[in-house]
């Protein structure tokens, strides 16, 4: 309904027909390195993935696995980092694009929402102003038009009394409503891609459900491509069609959601699923924890980052163990998945006994 208010951008990519074969976003060999005092931190290492229009890609991984760094790299928001590899939005290479060019795409073609909506909203400006200010920049619309747009967007994300609320400040909103405001802001310029970095982590479960539903509804209405970043496998299971599991800055496994959950190929994915207490599980048996703790990115081992914690490696022969620890596994197709593991659960059944 708001679509007619948006003038067509001459720089817009070709019509939907073209995008059928071409993914909206494709990331290839993305590596992000932070130079620090203690040495280089390779927060993301040779990551590749693609998202199509109308699709949702879920990225899971625990704290520090590089999820946020990836999303910021896509948006070109890193300041002190070395970003290599390719990030293409509808075939257009973003990595290395000058800031001015990027600014024409950010907020317009791709938008992002963040984990903590309070600190991500400017405390000094009304939400109305914040929702629409980039509308003025991208479309050159006037203040009044932008304000109207802000009110529309607030209504669309389900905020009651949008006209009044547009004049209020972020601190006057509750957590869930702030996240709605963030979403309204992200979608104000009708972007094609929405990156949501843990949008519900700070929220209560009941409110989380509301927000996830809202995102799903808007995605359907607008044919958005969504990258949903989370550490909650439950959330991924709910919203994603395709899932990327990250570990230590690398992709551990990538697969369609059903396949991934039904038959994980990477021991880490397996371990993750096993260690989760489940509501729908009637069994009260002790949880199967993954021993050890997540790796440091500072001095990455030359081989598989998961190998020190890997039950399969532990049960493998010394030669295999050495291989795991010394040689980096590539992401390889394996039974409809992409798995980066020398001892993928799909390839050998020797240690099958160790897993369920």
């Amino acid at each position: 309904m708001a679509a007619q208010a948006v003038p067509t951008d001459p720089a817009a990519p070709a019509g939907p027909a073209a995008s059928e074969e071409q993914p909206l976003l494709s990331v290839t060999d993305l590596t992000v390195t932070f130079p620090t005092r203690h040495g280089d931190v390779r927060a993301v290492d040779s990551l590749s993935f693609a998202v199509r229009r109308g699709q949702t890609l879920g990225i899971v991984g625990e704290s520090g696995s590089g999820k946020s760094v990836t999303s910021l790299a896509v948006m070109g928001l890193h300041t002190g980092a070395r970003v290599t590899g390719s990030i293409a939005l509808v075939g257009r290479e973003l990595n290395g694009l000058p800031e001015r060019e990027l600014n024409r795409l950010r907020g317009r073609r791709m938008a992002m929402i963040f984990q903590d909506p309070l600190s991500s909203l400017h405390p000094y400006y009304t939400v109305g102003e914040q929702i629409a200010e980039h509308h003025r920049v991208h479309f050159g619309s006037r203040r009044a038009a932008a304000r109207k747009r802000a009110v529309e967007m607030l209504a669309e994300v389900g905020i009651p009394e949008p006209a009044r609320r547009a004049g209020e400040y972020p601190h006057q909103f509750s957590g869930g409503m702030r996240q709605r405001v963030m979403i309204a802001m992200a979608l104000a310029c009708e972007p094609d891609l929405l990156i949501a970095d843990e949008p519900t982590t700070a929220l209560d479960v009941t409110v989380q459900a509301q927000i996830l539903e809202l995102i799903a509804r808007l995605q359907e209405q607008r044919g958005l491509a969504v990258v949903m970043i989370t550490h909650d496998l439950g959330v991924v299971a709910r919203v994603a069609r395709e899932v990327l599991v990250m570990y230590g800055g690398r992709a551990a496994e990538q697969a369609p959601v059903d396949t991934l959950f039904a038959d994980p190929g990477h021991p880490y994915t397996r371990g993750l699923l096993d260690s989760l207490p489940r509501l729908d599980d009637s069994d009260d048996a002790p949880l199967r924890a993954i021993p050890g703790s997540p790796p440091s990115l500072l001095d990455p081992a030359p081989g598989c980052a998961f190998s020190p914690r890997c039950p399969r490696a532990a049960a493998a022969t010394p030669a295999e163990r050495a291989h795991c620890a010394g040689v980096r596994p590539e992401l390889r197709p394996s039974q409809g998945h992409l798995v980066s593991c020398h001892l993928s659960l799909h390839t050998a059944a020797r240690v099958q006994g160790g897993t369920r």
Partner: protein
Amino acid sequence: MTLYLGRRLLAVAGVLVAIAAVTFTVFYVLPSDPAAAACGKSCSTDRLEAIRAHMGLDRPLWRQFADFVTGIFTGRTMGSGQYALHCAFPCLGYSYENSEAVWDLLMDRLPVSASLALGAAVLWLALGLSAGVTAALRKDSLTDRALMVGAVAAASLPVYFTSMMLIYGLIRTAGLLPYPQYVPLGDDPLHWASNLLLPWLALAVLYAAMYARQSRSSMIETMAEPYIRTARAKGLPRRTVVVKHGLRAGMTPILTLFGMDLGGLLAGAVITESIFGLPGIGRLFYGALSTGDQPVILGVTLLAAAFIVVANLAVDLLYAVVDPRVRY
């Protein structure tokens, strides 16, 4: 809001009375005899007593203080008979030294101190903030380093050192500027400015350095805020991000500092005024000290305190304007 303001104003009055009381006590407890000072070289005991009585110094301290405080609001009559002086509403007493109403003296000197403080403030804000923000935006660059090294060094220079260097360099050697001599703004704005330029510079150097350091760290902190990332993610041009989103938030902490510094300076930059011989409140105060002119000392102290508290109040109120989260 009104309630808050009322409460705050009450607190301001309380603070001022407390400060007046402390100042009063200090000068009473510590030995100094203005009557004897006024009496002069050859002073008979008889005459000394008469003077003391005339000045009201023979009365108990609390009475003197009570008279003083009530006098501020109601005015009061000092002395009696033919020479009785009536001192009207904001009555801070009469100078022992030259029998002028302290309030008039203060108001007479205030334009000088205010010119000095405000002019310097404009200068230091302009210099300090632009240096600080520039350094923050180019964090860790050569510009940043150079600016900050300069700022630390400048902040370490005592104001009298800077002043003397400026006098030596710009007046004595280069002859670029006149020896500062206050000309009221209304008389001749150009002379006003050219005469004050040097004192402004001297004061501004020190403060600009402090503000540069402060605004740099504040700005760096702000630019790392998630909402700046949001602004960038929206595709706003860099200028908008920096100016609209960064500056406004980054400069709010500076406001508090500014209030305190300006409040403190309005009532006289004692050292600067005395170095440059500007007839401001600071010099009035310094002069009053050397002549033991208690009413003036008390008056200046109170005025200075009033500026500080009022500036703080103003800053707090301004905060509510700048930061919508603050509500009274």
